[in-house]
């Protein structure tokens, strides 16, 4: 019986097979755990960013329209509904501006901030001479509460509005919270 080492093609032994299967299984488990965690973490991070971004967006939008506002209105009739300033709705009267930023005399834009379920909206209706872009804009879809407080019991006399936005978003099993609060003084009051 001749035996040439080079041409030997023996089958795998049992121990070799067991080791290969073992290593394969461990690697598969590690890889799938890694991919699962990667996916979970990235979703978690995305939700944090979305939630904190929309919290900032709400505060920024409210600030952008409250600063130039001349008054908080008790009620105003918008095209879709009559809106009343309460702790959850803010109705503003803002002097209209032209394209160069100058106030148009006796012309006003009207803005409302309100929530529907977990969604926060900004509604803006403008005067024909106004340069602002009218429309309804969704600011966030993860709101748990959006409240406004006024420094005067008579809302029409309000000169300082405090906006308080709380977000709650879910990423798989984890809940993510975000809370912002800011005081804004009506510059044209």
């Amino acid at each position, binding site marked *: 019986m001749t*035996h040439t*080492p080079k041409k*030997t093609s023996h089958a795998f032994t049992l121990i070799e097979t067991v080791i290969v299967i073992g290593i394969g299984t461990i690697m598969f488990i590690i*890889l799938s755990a*890694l991919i699962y*965690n*990667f996916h979970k*973490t*990235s979703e978690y*991070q995305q939700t*944090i*960013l979305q939630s*904190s*971004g929309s*919290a*900032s967006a709400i*505060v920024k939008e409210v*600030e952008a329209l409250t600063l130039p506002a001349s008054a908080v209105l008790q009620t105003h009739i918008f095209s879709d509904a009559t809106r009343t300033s309460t702790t959850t709705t803010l109705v503003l009267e803002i002097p209209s501006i032209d394209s160069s930023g100058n106030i148009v005399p006796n012309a006003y834009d009207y803005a409302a901030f309100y929530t529907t379920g977990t969604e926060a909206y900004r509604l803006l209706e403008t005067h024909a001479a106004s340069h602002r872009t009218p429309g309804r804009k969704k600011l966030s879809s993860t709101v748990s509460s959006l409240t406004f407080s006024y420094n005067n019991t008579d809302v029409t006399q309000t000169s*300082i509005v405090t906006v308080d936005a709380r977000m709650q978003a879910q990423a798989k099993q984890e809940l993510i919270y*975000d*809370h*912002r*609060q*800011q*005081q*804004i*003084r009506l*510059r044209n009051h």
Partner: protein
Amino acid sequence: MRLSRGFSLIEVTITIFVVGVLLLLFQAVLQTSVLVRTTKSQGIALTIVRNELELLRAGGYAAVPPSGSFSNSLLSSIPSATTTLTVSDYNSSTKQVTAKVIWTETGAPTLSTVSLSTLITQTGGL
């Protein structure tokens, strides 16, 4: 006789490459989570300092407090945050106010800071 040869160069290279890519991915995930948390804290810190400046501007020149710190209910949502308020005389009728929030983000090597500054005049302005 058993043929026992080692791994070939190409096998070792591929293994090192695969392990390296996995480690890189893992490290990228860790780094992003620090970045994401810093971004969130930055947003909150910005709200805090804006609110403080808004308060001081609304209060007027006479009510501007001396340098020190300030408080805000949102500070607890930023890890180990401290605040400083610096008030200096810009000229005889104007004060310069700087509000700053400093915090240490978990996992970040350095301190993070958000700072805003404004002028408050004795008459006019807001």
